[in-house]
């Protein structure tokens, strides 16, 4: 082959020395934007708080205290605040992954709330029925039940989409409402209502509850152990994020999911079954969602199923988490931490400085706007063109020009040699 006999080109060496630098730079660049967006959002939020008659600095101190246990001046126990935050992060992260998987295949799963409810129902049933099993068996079974419940619900969406083309936005919204009514049926004078209560089920037994990070007996950081509800559920969620990353980046299935998300036509060309991939993706998405439901029952502070789960917004907040995290595992983890901390912080902010916790929602929205609109990049883009002077080629441009010149001359040499 002519090309293979050509001398090794310098740019391949350049490429060999730079990938780490390049990779670091890329990670930095990938993080810079969301981080900048968050900072910008907080600046805008500060203005809003001031307009609302609050003290931005005090509000943010309280927010940081509630979210991360730092800058606490109201007698809060940092460890407890962190525990609360972890408790909120866990379902957000899990559900965020559920939304993310679907997004990767080009599917907008607004039905995570419904899938999560089904997961919680299944998990509760297993937790109650098999209460006598030891935890090491019962907890995995309960999680599995959650997975099955969620996957079943999302699977309907996948199958309908694959075989009839029914749009997933419609089917997921419809199935949410079916799930809400199912939940009501079960819990309001229905088969799962606890005998002496209404609108809630019996709690799953001790064996079905996830171990907490801090022992329940004794005093820790000045507070009773039982006040700390953060459970090892956070590790399950983090592990799920790891699985997600591995699935997407390192497996053929993830590759196919991404291919289908980018172009169904191309996927078909490559022999990928689009139908099958859509169904599998929805099953995985539903499994994550169902696992969220399982974690809510086995972890957290309430171990029973409650009808108000239909007003819970986890499944919707997860959409924001996934979008903010740009559907990549690390991004979803970071944005779940941010949203979990904002939620926990909002509660403290209201009690500490009397700023409505609903400010937090506005803040979340501003973060999303700022990220989506990429205000920062627009600012940057606008700067160089202020002077009419055309921009000097930056490093990359210069490198590319050099490369092109080099390749050109190599090719010319070949041509000459043959002529």
């Amino acid at each position, binding site marked *: *082959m002519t*090309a293979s006999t050509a001398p090794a080109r310098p740019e391949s060496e350049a490429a060999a020395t730079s990938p780490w630098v*390049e990779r670091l730079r890329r990670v930095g660049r990938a993080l810079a934007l969301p981080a900048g967006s968050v900072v910008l959002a907080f600046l805008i939020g500060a203005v809003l708080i001031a307009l609302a008659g609050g003290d931005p600095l005090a509000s943010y101190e309280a927010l940081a205290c509630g979210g991360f246990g730092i800058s606490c001046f109201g007698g809060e126990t940092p460890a407890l605040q962190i525990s609360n935050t972890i408790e909120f992060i866990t379902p957000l992260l899990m559900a965020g992954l559920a939304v993310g998987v679907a997004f990767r295949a080009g599917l907008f799963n607004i039905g995570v709330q419904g899938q999560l409810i089904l997961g919680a129902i299944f998990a509760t049933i297993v937790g109650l029925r098999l209460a006598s099993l030891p935890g090491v068996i019962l907890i995995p079974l309960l999680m599995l039940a959650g997975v099955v419940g969620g996957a079943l619900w999302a699977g309907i969406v996948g199958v309908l989409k694959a075989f009839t083309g029914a749009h997933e936005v419609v089917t997921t919204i419809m199935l949410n409402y079916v799930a809400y009514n199912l939940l009501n049926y079960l819990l309001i004078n229905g088969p799962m209502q606890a005998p002496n209560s209404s609108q809630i089920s019996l709690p799953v037994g001790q064996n079905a509850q996830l171990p907490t990070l801090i022992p329940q007996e004794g005093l820790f950081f000045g507070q009773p152990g039982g006040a700390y509800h953060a459970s090892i559920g956070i590790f399950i969620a983090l592990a799920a994020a790891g699985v997600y990353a591995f699935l997407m980046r390192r*497996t*053929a299935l993830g590759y196919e999911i991404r291919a289908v998300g980018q172009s169904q036509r*191309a996927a078909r060309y490559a*022999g990928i079954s689009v139908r099958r991939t859509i169904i599998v993706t929805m099953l995985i998405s539903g499994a994550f969602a169902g696992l969220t439901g399982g974690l809510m029952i086995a972890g957290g502070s309430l171990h029973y199923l409650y009808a108000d789960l239909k007003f819970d917004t986890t499944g919707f907040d997860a959409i924001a988490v996934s979008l903010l995290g740009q559907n990549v595992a690390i991004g979803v983890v970071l944005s779940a931490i941010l949203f979990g901390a904002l939620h926990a912080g909002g509660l403290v902010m209201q009690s500490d400085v009397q700023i409505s916790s609903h400010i937090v929602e506005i803040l979340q929205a501003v973060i999303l706007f700022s990220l989506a609109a990429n205000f920062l990049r627009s600012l940057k883009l606008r700067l160089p063109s202020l002077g009419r002077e055309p921009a000097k080629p930056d490093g990359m441009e210069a490198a590319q020009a050099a490369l092109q010149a080099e390749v050109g001359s190599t090719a010319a040499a070949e*041509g*000459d040699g043959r002529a």
Partner: protein
Amino acid sequence: MSTEVRADRPAAPGGEAPYAIEMRHIRKAWPGVVANDDVNLTIRKGEIHALVGENGAGKSTLMNILYGLLKPDAGEILINGQHAHISGPRDAIVRGIGMVHQHFMLIPVFTVGENIVLGREPVENGDFYDRSEVDTRIRALSDEYGLHINPDARTGDLPVGLQQRVEILKVLYRGADILILDEPTGVLTPQETHDLFAVLRGLVRGGKTIIFITHKLKEVLEISDQVTVLRRGKVIGTVRTKDTNEEEIARMMVGREVLLRVDKAPAKPGAAALRVEHLTVNTEQGLPAVRDVSLELYAGEILGVAGVEGNGQSELVAALAGMLKPRSGRIWIGDRDVTEEGARHTRHAGLAHIPEDRRGAGLILSFSIAENTIFGHQRDAAFALRGMVLRLHEIYAWARRLIKQFDVRTPSEETPARALSGGNQQKVIVAREMATQPKVLLASQPTRGVDIGAIEFIHRRIVEQRDAGAAILLVSAELDEIRSLSDRIAVMYEGKIASIEPPDVPEERLGLLMTGGGGRQTHPAAS
């Protein structure tokens, strides 16, 4: 060469008469690339001015600037001697500039009429769209320029040749004096190109000025008065067409000598690698496309498939590749009946496929080049442990090898395919499909829209594959390509193989066979 046409026109501008267009010191940079670097271009009134250059030379960018779609970083534009501030296509339209874009600007779900009048729609009773007025005007226009078309046809249903016609009518409808045609012949058959040239000559006679972008040097010589060559964003020079030749233009474009002809030894056909019996295939919409086709393709030969676009070639290839289920008939690769197997298994049986739609099917533009080099092979043992876990190390090594072997010009294997020029994108596909040493290679329009340097390269590779024993089915709208590469030529007409011819068949006979043995091709919408 039609010298008599050139004789009709003045060889130089008449004395003081201002240029139709002057572009001065135009600069436009994209991130990482300077697409236009201090470009000066002057177009005389009433001439056909060809603009040529390799892929990515900056031709489209320059014309998009002229048409107001892009804002230059620097430079100025004069139209008919007057400074023109063009801040959007509307300004260009007002100044009598019309443009037929490289990628059609047609709305598939609209009718032909709606597409043509869009932006200058006749209305009645206030704002109501006046369909009968549209029909009248389009018929008048069609008659005037001999571009017949049915205004009520749905544009997406038309073959590309007719879509091209719609594009030109759009420009004429707006009364443009200066027409920019960006690769208008890229998708046309020789007959359609011929027809188009007749129209262009008519337009010039009627006083219009035309800027014409193409990769086909023959067309440059046939139709233009002047040629401007761009290379990597810079003007290399402008020459009078009658003072130059193909070799010179090619050298200006590429910066070196280019082999314009493929050297190849006679084929040594082996056993049948692909057999097709009584194959009938419908389009995705369920319309008959391939009717009862039988053929045998031998190892070590190139079978060219010629035909006017829309005569079933695409569906034939899709069926062979397992992307479209045939209605009846059977397909064998070697001894394996793959009729029902689908794309994945057909691939495993040894078939490779360079698809005609490279951006829509052959690549995932957002994936890296490395990821694209395993597209369709993502579950192969070489790239995935047990078909499940990707072996990234091997994949990157593989990608680097292909990049080197196939001279893909890219900063790295992690660059997204989107960032490559069209020619280099095509090279990635060619590399991937050839590297598996397939038994059967379906090459569909393998050099469409690719510059001559890359065409030369791809042609060489196809011949090498043949010599290595692959059976190659080459589908192309380029008769030159078909004739110079093929060992046998099958002509498709209305879903059937009209005839199989030797490679030295006269062009006239091919043309005749492609149009049903005589009469002009017609399409129901072209009436």
